[in-house]
């Protein structure tokens, strides 16, 4: 590692994401200034507004509470990001994170609702996490199986399934999981049924730091090295990467690529389901029929930004977590809508995939023909008909 660092490889692999983020913040700043007239109390083309917005964005995560909420936001992003990243490694594009997340939350909710009162936290919480993750895995298994047996493209099927699971979730909250006697349809609060994840960081937690950092953080922290080990030190991981790099070669090499597709999609769904279960038990605690999440799309950003490397995914999750944590402060203090983060994500990815930095370097060195460098490691071809 030290040697690679000296070679500049690690530094180089960091330079591009950092440059993409800087470009995105600049572009976002121009965007904020362009529409500043609509922010209450600001004139048109107010150059001060982007500065004010970014100041409150940074202020939002650079404090004890801010760091904790960054970690809380980063936890599901890392888990779901790993789920998308392992798909990319196998050449599969899992856009089903949203549905897998929701069904994972429903699974955890069901366990807590039905056995939480009698079973106690030591049984309820692990079982709820496991059932949530397993349901997420099932939600990934379906598009995997469809892709392997009929060739139905996973991009279309996972997105269709997102909507199906959105309605499954609404139905479960209105039906079997609804809290009897509540004025509006809502589920039970998991903390009433031994289902809330213990608080790790916070006034009542093990470490008195910020507030509300739940133990799901440890799960995400463990998942990163486990996924790295799985991908780079096991046979299955090798086969997944081989199938992503060159499916034909993998098949001729004797790998059962169809089984790999099903396995990878199931694993991807499992991680997103786990993200949903930890978020439910650790943060939101109860669900309404309208519960929804942006995790599915955020996880794609995290996986691409982290170059589908588990360690990179962990770092990208922290970055996006910080942006999410800061965006609330930005919206309240500067009046700039938190949706800016979604737009910034797209701009970051845009700069990253077109390799702006490398294009600029290439043109400065006047090396013709190097405009589109290989990006196989980070983004395996998902091509073919959607």
């Amino acid at each position, binding site marked *: 590692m030290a040697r690679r660092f000296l070679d500049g490889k690690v530094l180089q692999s960091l330079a591009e994401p950092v440059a993409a983020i800087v470009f995105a913040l600049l572009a976002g700043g121009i965007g904020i200034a362009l529409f500043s007239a609509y922010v209450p109390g600001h004139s048109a083309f107010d150059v001060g507004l982007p500065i004010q917005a970014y100041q409150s964005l940074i202020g939002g995560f650079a404090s004890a509470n801010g760091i904790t909420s960054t970690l809380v936001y980063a936890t599901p992003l890392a888990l779901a990001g790993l789920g998308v990243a392992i798909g990319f490694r196998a050449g599969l*594009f899992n856009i089903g994170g949203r549905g897998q997340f929701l069904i994972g939350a429903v699974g955890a909710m069901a366990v807590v609702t039905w056995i939480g009162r009698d079973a106690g936290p030591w049984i309820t919480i692990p079982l709820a996490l496991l059932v949530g993750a397993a349901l997420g895995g099932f939600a990934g298994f379906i598009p995997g199986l469809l892709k392997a047996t009929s060739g139905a493209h996973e991009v*279309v099927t996972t*997105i*269709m399934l997102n909507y*199906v699971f959105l309605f499954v979730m609404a139905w479960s909250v209105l039906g079997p999981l609804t809290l009897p006697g509540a004025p509006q349809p809502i589920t039970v609060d998991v903390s009433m049924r031994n289902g809330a994840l213990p608080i790790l960081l916070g006034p009542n937690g093990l470490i008195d730091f910020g507030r509300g950092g739940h133990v799901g953080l440890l799960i995400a922290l463990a998942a990163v090295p486990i996924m790295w080990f799985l991908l780079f030190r096991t046979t299955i991981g090798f086969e997944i990467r081989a199938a992503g790099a060159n499916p034909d070669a993998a098949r001729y090499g004797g790998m059962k690529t169809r089984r790999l597709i099903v396995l990878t999609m199931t694993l991807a769904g499992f991680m997103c389901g786990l993200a949903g279960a930890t978020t439910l038990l650790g943060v939101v605690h109860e669900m309404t029929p309208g519960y929804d999440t942006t995790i599915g799309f955020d996880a794609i950003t995290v996986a691409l930004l982290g170059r589908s490397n588990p360690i990179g995914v962990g770092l990208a999750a922290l970055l996006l977590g910080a942006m999410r944590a800061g965006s609330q402060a930005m919206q309240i203090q500067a009046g700039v809508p938190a949706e800016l983060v979604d737009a910034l994500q797209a701009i970051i990815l845009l700069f990253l995939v*077109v390799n702006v930095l490398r294009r600029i370097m290439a043109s400065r060195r006047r090396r013709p023909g190097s405009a589109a460098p290989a990006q196989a490691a980070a*983004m395996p071809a*998902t091509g073919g*008909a959607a």
Partner: protein
Amino acid sequence: MNAIPEALNALPVLGIVFQFLGYVVGNLSFMSQTTVAVAVPIALAALCGAVCERSGVVNIGLEGIMLTAAFTGWMVGVAAVGILGRSDPLPVFGITPPLLIGVAAAIGIGMLVSLLHAWLSISARIDQIIGGTIINIGAVGITGYLYHLVANQSLIGAGSFKPLSVPKEVADFPLVGWLANAVLSQGPIGIVTIILVVFLQVMLFRSRWGLRTRAAGEHPRAAETVGIDVIRLRYLNVVMAGALAALAGAWLSMEHGSKFDANMTAGRGFIGLAAMIVGRWTPVGAFGAALLFASATALSASLTISPPTGDLGDLMARVPGEFWEALPYIITIVVLAGLIGRSIAPAADGQPYERESAT
């Protein structure tokens, strides 16, 4: 219901099927009109996808193009009303100047976003599915951001187009009249869509442009050899197709409804792509598939508005409403998965084309 003899309705199990058929026939007038209307944005998205993919570019960013166009059309309509003021709509389609300006703006922005996708796919040669996803994420973010800024102000939009009114005598005529009503009692974008389906079917398979497009999508190197500028053709197709997806967006915020809502496309672009695959990359086939997906929505709308009676009603009452809402998406998956090896994409679909270097 009277169309089916009572004796048949009373049969066990099968009776429910007959009752269901009777219900569908009884409500066909409403359901066929709704089916065509709901199919319009799906069909437009499918046409956009077909024009792109026939030339070899996968465009899953069309969902984002739709969303951006829906927002821009609505916003420009608001601005146009502010400048021009309200005017009396024309008797046909309820056309007003602000509405037309809104549609033009929607088409303009749609083609612009499409140009970005074209550049990413054709010139920058990045993975086209990832490029499309970035456009989708960006569209959600940027329209969400701007909508958040203006949502609290009570803005007066340009309203919406009105459907053609088919004379009641014609509309009530069984079957033929119902179908005529279904097709004709649409707004201008709906009518244009039906014309475009036929027009593009003919163009793709009977014109020089169509032949060149299909050549670029099947074997770009061969196409280039006979003098077709593959890069230029792909740019042209993707940008033109952007106008189709933009019309779908304009339909959402100016014909179906009269205002923008965050994420109002709700996966219609992706259903459109599925319709394109089911319709084997042909405009008429894609329109047929769009009608199939839309019929599920129409059925659920009909069940809500006029619930069936008798045994069928009892059965339907036990099916949760969420099931009907999820049905179009489920049907899309089932039909897509059922097409084992029978729907084959253009050979060079999704592959960037690189000219052989002169050296």
